[in-house]
């Protein structure tokens, strides 16, 4: 498998505080790649740099063979990276369907074609029956899936998911895990996710990167990572492995 996303020696500091420190890793095409780590480890900063919310201070980010660091978020999305926000931001006054149509219109000039695609995505995300509701009237789990649906409708090659399972009950978590697995298997979509919910990470990820103080302290398959001494000490805690 070749690398779809290549992060090379990327750094970002905020007023002297190093949020991400010369971080390098590769996301292989077709995989599900998880970034874990304690709060303040630099996970969301990393995501924001990949998605174009801000540029890294140094280092490069290469997607499908081209540098994307420093590009604005809309250009990055058009290149094929869809993202969700840690704090969900659907378009509140629009219907569920219209939220997803907005995403689908990115690569489809015609509204009816976009609507057809949006319906497909909504069925996948289990939101089709709620398509006429205003997004603001949805429950949190539904809004989280709506975020994924909108990002997915833009036909990404890489989907960035920022804690889509945080705050969900285990049954809802399992539901999203199942949906993401299905997406990955059926469409070959590459997924890069930040997640605290270890049961979801273990069920999904083919590869895990552990961040601590902006640097990678471990990388590898889930089995390797959970047995790593540094990871247990700084993040998981001893009871996770016992």
């Amino acid at each position, binding site marked *: 498998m070749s690398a779809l996303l290549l992060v090379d020696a990327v750094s970002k500091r905020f007023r002297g505080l190093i949020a991400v420190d010369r971080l390098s890793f590769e996301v292989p095409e077709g995989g599900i790649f998880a970034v874990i780590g304690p709060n303040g480890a630099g996970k969301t900063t990393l995501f924001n740099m990949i*998605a174009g*919310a801000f540029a890294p201070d140094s280092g490069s980010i290469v997607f499908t063979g081209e540098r994307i660091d420093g590009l*604005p*978020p*809309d250009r990055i*999305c*058009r290149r094929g990276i869809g*993202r969700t*926000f840690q704090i969900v*931001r*659907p*378009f*509140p*006054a*629009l*219907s569920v369907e*219209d939220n997803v*149509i*907005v*995403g689908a*219109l*990115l690569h489809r*000039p*015609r*509204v009816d074609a*976009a609507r057809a695609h949006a319906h497909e995505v909504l069925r996948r995300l289990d939101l089709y029956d709620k398509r006429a509701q205003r997004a603001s009237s949805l429950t949190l789990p539904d809004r989280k899936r709506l975020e994924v649906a*909108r*990002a997915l409708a*833009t036909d990404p090659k890489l989907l960035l998911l920022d804690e889509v399972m945080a705050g969900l009950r285990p049954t809802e978590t399992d539901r999203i895990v199942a949906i993401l697995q299905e997406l990955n298997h059926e469409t070959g979509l590459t997924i890069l996710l930040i997640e605290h919910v270890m049961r979801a990470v273990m069920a999904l990820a083919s590869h895990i990167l552990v961040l601590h103080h902006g640097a990678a302290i471990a990388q590898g398959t889930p089995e390797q990572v959970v047995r790593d001494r540094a990871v247990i000490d700084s993040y998981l805690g001893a009871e996770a492995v016992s």
Partner: protein
Amino acid sequence: MIAGLIEGLPRRALILLGVLLVALIVAPLVAGDYLLTVLILILYFAYIGQAWNIMMGFAGQLSLGHALYVGLGAYTAAALYVNFGIGPWLGLMVAVPVAALAGAFIGFLAFRFRVAGVYFAILTIAVAEFARVGFDHLAWTSGSSGLFLPVRQYAHNDLWLLRGHPAMFYYVILAASVLALIGCRALLQSRVGYFWLAIREDEEAARSAGIDTFHYKMVAVVISAGMTSFAGVFYAFFYNNLFPEQVFHVLRSIEIILGPIVGGIGTLFGPILGAFLLTGLAEMLTSTLAALGVDLPGAKQVFYGICLLLVITALPDGVWPWLSKRIGLTERNK
């Protein structure tokens, strides 16, 4: 073509729209000159409200300086007519680009340098004020002493030069309002319309969904400004006199936005309903007071104030979203 226009409209909406349109078409046959003038004013505000709503209601960009585009349209067409004898329709071909360019200028400054929200609104006021002062000193348009269009009794209506009876003006502004409604509906249902709503709802999320927000906000300002300039051309040829102090004044800009606010920002029918409610009721109030022999200067302004207060407290989304629910007609997107 026709099928495309009415597609997706419920039967009841079609009937109501049809009845309203027929009533407006036959109105000049029964209405006296005064009522006709009031109707012209209502449709004039319905039209501009529709244009302003593209920026605010669809794309979420608050303009408090739309008098700028009215004024530029009015002065461009009037000056071309007075100085070169060029008729209003040809003048419109110049007025629209002039206003659109002014909109593009404001939009570029604001959107390139991230001037948003209140600061954007202040910028729109500033440019309109700048134009007001500038036109006060512009000799070519007679400065502050005002620009006057030649007026005489016309034996017949001249649609090409827009000279004639109020009924002709009435049908012109009615046609413009109908076209504006149809155009706005088409825009709202298009790709651009979806992107505007997304920007209005959450600009950062819109960018992350791949929308070039700078581009689509520019499109909104340019369309809104160009559309508004027609109202200016109409104003010039209907009233036959222009003063910078009047047309560019910030109060004109406020007047423009009251209708859509009362009717319902972001809705298609809100600006029309708002114009009927505000202008219609205000004129009724004025004429009733006049008939009673009561002289109350400023009564109209007080009335506007009360209307705004009522709407903001009781129906913050405007009258139309509430009314449309009552009569079983809800618009999409709002």
